[in-house]
């Protein structure tokens, strides 16, 4: 067990190095298996020998299959793109094409309605839950390739952006080495950056991991996590606000509670402190592009100013008001994106998050680009405006963020109508409902405005653009 950072070859190799082969991954009814079985490829019916050197799109619904497939494919596939479960399948063809995927590994037949029409460029490899003949000899016989990992994040036009990482960049923030007595869990799906960190952390340290199955309610998941002795657990602030509304919050007794994916406010930190008085309450700042930048454990929102200068392994600076990050944890590049490059010439990633210094502490002050973070899911206002503007009675619209104590932020829209709304009683609410219905038909639910306000005019600047006041 001599695993130096940088020499990490593949996940199955990392499991062997951690040496805790009997620790288990448990995803409720979706399945459970030991890390040893997962490394041997016996937990999932997926023949990886034919996939050696391929570019693979992993588009499965359940987390157990995703976890097992990631372990089997890393070091075997040339490239592995992770399709997150909440993303509409209409983007499947675009993602497969952009990732150059010759193979789609899926548990949902591609012929099902809702999938994008043309995925014929790729071969479908169905997987089914259940035990398989051991793949161990194929995994061991061939020398591993360094798999490119592709994560998806939301883009301005509604199409996802493809972000390329390596196993080395994804695991650079993780201290290897087994720590007996720990068990990890995450509310956050392991195909998104925050959840993936916890999955990789468990793999590299041989720690038991409890995942939420799609069928489980939050209360059932918490109860299960308590029964399995979870000590360390990650969620977004929105996941935690929801968990604290359940009596089942009492069924876990964590030592370490981590928040990431959204900015943590003081109310949620205080509530978690009161609920779990013996736990360390930590909030992390990470993004798919910038990687893990810092973790704050003093129970206060924001970041002590000296952490910005003195976080080991990570260089941070504030330029033009936004946080910039350079480290070995950042992504490599975007695939198939004609927008600006992921890093500047010096290797810094612009997080786009505005931060302000007050009394020796940095506080987040919203997004420079106006992206709205609804419970950890990003919304680009322009995408929502484009839909609203297609409504026959709408002249123009401005979509903005409104603070929410439940999901951090929600979407609201100011709408200018082509003709002023009739003053007849009831016609305004009816039209508001009609526009919302129009949005629900076109957009994921977190992008649909919570409220539509009719306004007589929207401010337009000299350059002809709508005036947006971010944050």
């Amino acid at each position, binding site marked *: 067990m001599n695993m130096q950072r940088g020499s990490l070859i593949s996940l199955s190799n990392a499991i062997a190095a951690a040496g805790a082969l009997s620790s288990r991954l448990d995803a409720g009814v979706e399945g459970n298996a030991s890390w040893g079985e997962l490394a041997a490829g016996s937990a999932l019916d997926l023949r990886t020998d034919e996939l050696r050197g391929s570019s693979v799109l992993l588009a499965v619904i359940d987390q157990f299959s995703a976890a097992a497939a990631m372990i089997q494919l890393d070091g075997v596939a040339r490239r592995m793109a992770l399709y997150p479960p909440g993303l509409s399948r209409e983007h499947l063809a675009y993602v497969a094409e952009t990732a150059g995927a010759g193979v789609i590994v899926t548990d949902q037949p591609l012929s099902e309605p809702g999938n994008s029409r043309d995925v014929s460029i790729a071969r479908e490899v169905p997987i089914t839950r259940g035990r398989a003949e051991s793949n161990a000899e194929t995994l061991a016989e061939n020398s591993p390739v360094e798999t490119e990992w592709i994560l998806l994040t939301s883009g301005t036009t509604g199409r996802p952006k493809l972000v390329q990482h390596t196993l080395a960049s994804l695991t650079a923030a993780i201290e290897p080495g087994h720590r007996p007595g720990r068990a990890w869990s995450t509310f956050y799906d392991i195909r998104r950056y925050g959840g993936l960190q916890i999955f990789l952390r468990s793999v590299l340290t041989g720690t038991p991991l409890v995942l939420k199955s799609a069928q489980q309610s939050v*209360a059932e998941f918490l109860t299960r996590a308590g029964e399995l002795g979870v000590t360390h657990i990650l969620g977004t602030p*929105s996941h935690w606000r*929801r968990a604290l509304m359940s*009596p089942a919050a009492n069924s876990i007794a964590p030592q370490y509670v981590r928040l990431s994916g959204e900015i943590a406010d003081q109310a949620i930190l205080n509530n978690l402190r*009161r609920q779990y008085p013996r736990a360390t309450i930590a909030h992390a700042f990470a993004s798919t592009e910038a990687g893990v930048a810092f973790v704050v454990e003093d129970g206060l929102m924001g970041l002590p100013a000296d952490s910005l200068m003195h976080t080991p392994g990570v260089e941070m600076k504030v330029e033009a008001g936004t946080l910039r990050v350079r480290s070995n944890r950042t992504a490599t590049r975007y695939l198939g994106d004609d927008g600006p490059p992921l890093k500047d010439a010096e290797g810094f990633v612009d997080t786009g998050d505005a931060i302000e210094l007050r009394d020796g502490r940095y506080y987040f002050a919203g997004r420079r680009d106006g992206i709205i973070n609804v419970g950890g899911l990003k919304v680009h206002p322009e995408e929502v405006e484009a839909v609203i503007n297609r409504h026959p009675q709408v002249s123009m619209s401005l979509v903005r963020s409104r603070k929410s*104590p*439940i999901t951090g932020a*929600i979407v609201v829209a100011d709408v200018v109508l082509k003709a002023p709304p009739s003053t007849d009683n009831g016609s305004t609410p009816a039209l508001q409902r009609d526009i919302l219905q129009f949005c629900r038909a076109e957009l994921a639910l977190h992008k649909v405005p*919570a*409220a539509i306000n009719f306004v007589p005019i929207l401010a337009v600047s000299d350059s002809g653009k709508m005036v947006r006041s971010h944050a």
Partner: protein
Amino acid sequence: MRFGRPVNPDMEVRTEVIAQFKQVAQEQDKELAPLTDDLALIDCGLDSLCFAVVVARLENSLGVDPFSTDEDVRFPVTFGDFIRFYEHAAR
């Protein structure tokens, strides 16, 4: 003319909260459990996004957001807690 309008402000809060739960459940195609006071919120059928919409709309209609008035506010656990939370804030 509004006959039958509740005169008790607490009744008004309750009526409005129930109306918003039902409206949002219908919009987002969620099956709402019968709204009794001892119903755990987590079991009512609404997810976080639905709650966020309910809270935003209640702020519009009742003029209060009791979640955001205080950093040390305790989150309600049952539907009855939720109603009292708003009744208390609306006074």
